[in-house]
């Protein structure tokens, strides 16, 4: 405990706690010094600048974790879990990433490795020991059940994606129904923590926010059709695509205008997708014929808002969050898989599939052995047990923060 001083000016900057962690009892297994001082971005910045001036350098993205990995403190799945925690955008994602850090995912993968190892060992025994009595087991059944288990795990983990990246919610509607106003209204809510990430769709405006612990990515399709005349169908094509790819749709209708052909076209598009029908501009006198709408959407509960005044917006968001959570709920446990982990597991799945396909087609046992061997290598790579330089580079370049 002491005061941080600028050695040049001899001026005190802040009262701070300095913690020295001696190797190997630190996160990186190296000597580490940690400064703890009073909050505030400016103060932090000032102290970091001071350190840099005195000869320190900033950590590269992921460097602390990389060092922890290189010094044997954590293994690859744990290193990736750290990346997830650093990047975790919601409470749920944080919990899941924490579980991986404790090694749950690694245990799961180890059990798959064990199954494949057993099959491979049995094949090799048959091919290499003439005098052994290893019988041809029912590899296909074993492979199929392993395949199903792994596939289910990938699918469950895909369901966790919204907690990782945010559920995509598309705001659709013809021009001037108030899409941008709604977006602004949402972004302006005090309860919503808005973070600006670059949008994934170039033609649409995207706003990321965490509402009641659930990360959402609101996509405003405004501007899709308005600029050029002959692009009308193109606009519809893009809207269609967004509707198809989004997890949830908010379809805006201007209740101060009668329904137009465009409105009906849109309503048709969203009919089979999870959605809310949002009647905007409730501050203006209604001109919409609800009866015909109700014939098309008999079960529909209409959300009424005024994007201008903000009336009803909070209620809409509350319901939206409930819906989104429902869509992505699942039974039991799931493991949060990074894209690389998913890719490796999917590659293993393809190899397993190819392996049993080869047997169905009548190919010989040696081919089965080779494919299982490759599947095994892929799974080993997942726990970092076999080496691939490119893989490591790509993992550590994925970090966007030091540690």
């Amino acid at each position: 405990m002491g005061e941080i001083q600028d050695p040049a000016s001899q001026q005190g900057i802040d009262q701070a706690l300095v913690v020295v962690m001696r190797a190997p009892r630190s996160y990186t297994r190296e000597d580490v010094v940690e400064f703890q001082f009073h909050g505030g971005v400016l103060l932090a910045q000032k102290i970091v600048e001071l350190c840099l001036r005195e000869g320190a350098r900033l950590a590269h993205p992921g460097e602390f974790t990389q060092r922890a990995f290189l010094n044997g403190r954590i293994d690859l799945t744990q290193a990736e879990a750290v990346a997830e925690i650093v990047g975790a955008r919601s409470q749920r994602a944080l919990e899941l990433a924490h579980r991986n850090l404790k090694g749950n995912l690694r245990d799961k993968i180890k059990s798959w490795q064990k199954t494949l190892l057993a099959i491979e060992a049995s094949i090799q025994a048959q091919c290499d020991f003439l005098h052994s009595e290893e019988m041809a087991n029912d590899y296909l059944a074993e492979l199929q059940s392993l395949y199903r288990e792994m596939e289910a795990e990938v699918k469950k983990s895909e369901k966790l994606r919204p907690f990782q990246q945010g559920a995509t919610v598309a705001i659709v509607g013809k021009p001037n129904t108030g899409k941008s106003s709604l977006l602004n209204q949402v972004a302006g809510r005090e309860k919503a923590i808005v973070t600006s990430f670059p949008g994934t769709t170039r033609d649409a405006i995207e706003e990321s926010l965490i509402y009641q612990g659930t990360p959402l990515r609101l996509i405003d399709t405004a501007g899709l059709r308005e600029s050029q005349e002959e692009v009308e169908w193109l606009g519809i094509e893009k809207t269609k695509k967004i509707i198809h790819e989004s997890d949830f749709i908010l379809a805006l209708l201007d209740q101060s205008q009668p329904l137009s052909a465009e409105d009906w076209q849109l309503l048709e598009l969203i009919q089979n997708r999870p959605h809310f029908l949002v009647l905007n501009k409730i501050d203006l006198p209604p001109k919409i014929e609800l009866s015909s709408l109700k014939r098309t959407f008999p079960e529909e509960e209409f959300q009424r808002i005024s994007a201008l005044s903000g009336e009803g917006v909070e209620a809409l968001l509350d319901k939206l969050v409930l819906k989104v959570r429902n869509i992505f709920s699942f039974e039991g446990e799931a493991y949060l898989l990074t894209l690389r982990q998913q890719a490796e597991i999917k590659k293993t799945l393809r190899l397993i599939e190819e392996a049993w396909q080869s047997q169905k087609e009548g190919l010989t046992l040696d081919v089965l052995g080779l494919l299982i061997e490759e599947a095994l290598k892929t799974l080993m790579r997942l726990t970092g047990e076999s080496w691939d330089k490119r893989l490591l580079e790509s993992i550590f370049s994925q970090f966007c923060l030091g540690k």
Partner: protein
Amino acid sequence: MTQSPTTEYEVIVVGGGHAGCEAAWVSAQMGLKTLLITLTIHGIALMPCNPAIGGPGKGQVVREIDALGGLMAQVTDQSTIHLRRVNTGKGPAVQTLRAQTMRDLYSLKMRERLENNSNLSLFQGEVEEILLDSARKVKGVRVQYGTTFWGKAVVLAIGTFLNGVIRLGSLSFPAGRHGEFPAQKIGHSLEKIGLKLGKLNTCTSPRLDRRTIDFSQMEEQPSEEKPLCFSFEGTPRVYQGASIFITRTTQKTCQIIKRNLDRSPLLYPVSDSSPVRECPSLEDKVCRFPDRESHPIFLEPEGPNSNEIYCQGVFTSLPEEVQWQIIHSIPGLEKTHIMRPGYGIEYNFVFPNQLKPTLECQTVTGLFLAGQINGTSGYEEAAGQGVLAGINAGRYVQNLPPLVLRRDQSYIGVMVDDLITKGVEEPYRLRTGKVEYRLMIRHSNADLRLTEVGYHLGIVPHSRYQKVVEKREGIEKEISRLKQTTLAPTSDLNQLLREKGTTPINEVTTLYTILSRPQVSYYDLQAFDPFRPFLPPQVIEEVEIEIKYRGYIERQKREVEEFLQLESKKIPPNLDFYRLKGISREAQERLAKARPTTLGQASRVQGVTPSDLVVLSILLERKNLPLNQE
């Protein structure tokens, strides 16, 4: 001391077993004045265990030896009494041959070949010391009773003779093979020049008297009806009259063994890490698989001139008195007479991580090690190393670059790489499963892979190389013909396809496409392919494999490319691993011991983690690497 010219040689090979014979032969074939020193000339190329050559992983090596110009395949063909294809139906990556041979004939034929090589001399004696000059270069060997031979390179292939001790129950006595003296003094010489020795053991089975065996209840395994041969130069033949017979141990056998377990001197520790152990004794099997009621026993003939029957499956070091009980508890062997009891042997070996990929010692220039002294088991493994060591001893004397066989080129390459990078904990045995690229490096294409190498080394004659060139052209030509020849969907053809269990075609299709179906063979399509050229069966076999397994072979080729990238990253030979920062202490030790020459090899050293390798790869790109001062 004055030396007469006759005691000066270019290459001296110590040991007349399978490694020594091949090493001496290839060295002499390369035109080098070679001396083979052996304890007993009548014991040359003896098979102290099974009278069999080949089998999975081993047959492939025999073919590689043949392609490189070694003798094992040719001598096997000259002494075979029973020959079988093994792993047929399991695919080209694992398929090979296994021969039963006449033990004595193999030995005689090998001796005949060696004695008639004009560059090669034989000498009977025990080498007691390897002689080095002041620069730790080999300059010769000193033999018991006074003779010294000067040589530029020495190949040491002394097998289980290095401090060999036979163990039989509580008995133990020094021996090389049963009834022969061990080599004891040379062990001190090796330690004196700084080589670290370890201890291994292995067992052999009792030999039985054919006349006292009741074969009537046993399953018979006859020799193949199709003509076959091991050597690419050989004439395929059918062998008759010498069958293998199969019987089984009983519960009584297990009880006898369990009762006497404490009398087995060489019981391996039970290992739970590996599902397959390479060559267990019967005692081991009984301990590790207590639930199994019986184990198979293969009775292998030793030839028409001998009544000895080799009893495969009863590897044991139990006392003789127990061996009688064991044999008599087996159906068909109730009244059998044992001619030679089984025994265990314990011997020293040189930790092979002290070798380069050329099989030369890292610390002694001109000294090459081959065979069981490097911790391997099996005649074929020994012979394969003998060929490589003989070649490299020759190359060293010729002052030419050495031959290194890579993992993607040959079984021999896999074996040597495993030995020098992974080390040895139990006798090393080759298996197809250890060979990653086994679909590319097959029994059937060893000639295509290695004859050219043997030719350029001066071992294989030009005529033989020419044949391989023609074979390769023949394969390529036929594949492109099959790609261009089409068949119409006639009812005859579709009927054939249906009979073979595959779907009929409904449009004009190339022969190539039809042949890519696993169910249809080249011969099946004979009637539909009237302009088919006459081709030797070896060419047709390769054509079929290349077509049917094309996708998988392509996949392996891509893997090999990745593998070669790592292999191409060289590690300086005098790199000081202990001064590399960021690498764990354990990895530093392991790397310093194994002294890998490439990053790829480093990646296969045990105990070196992925993170160590990342650091190593980053450091290797730097300029100021810490080097040992020497």
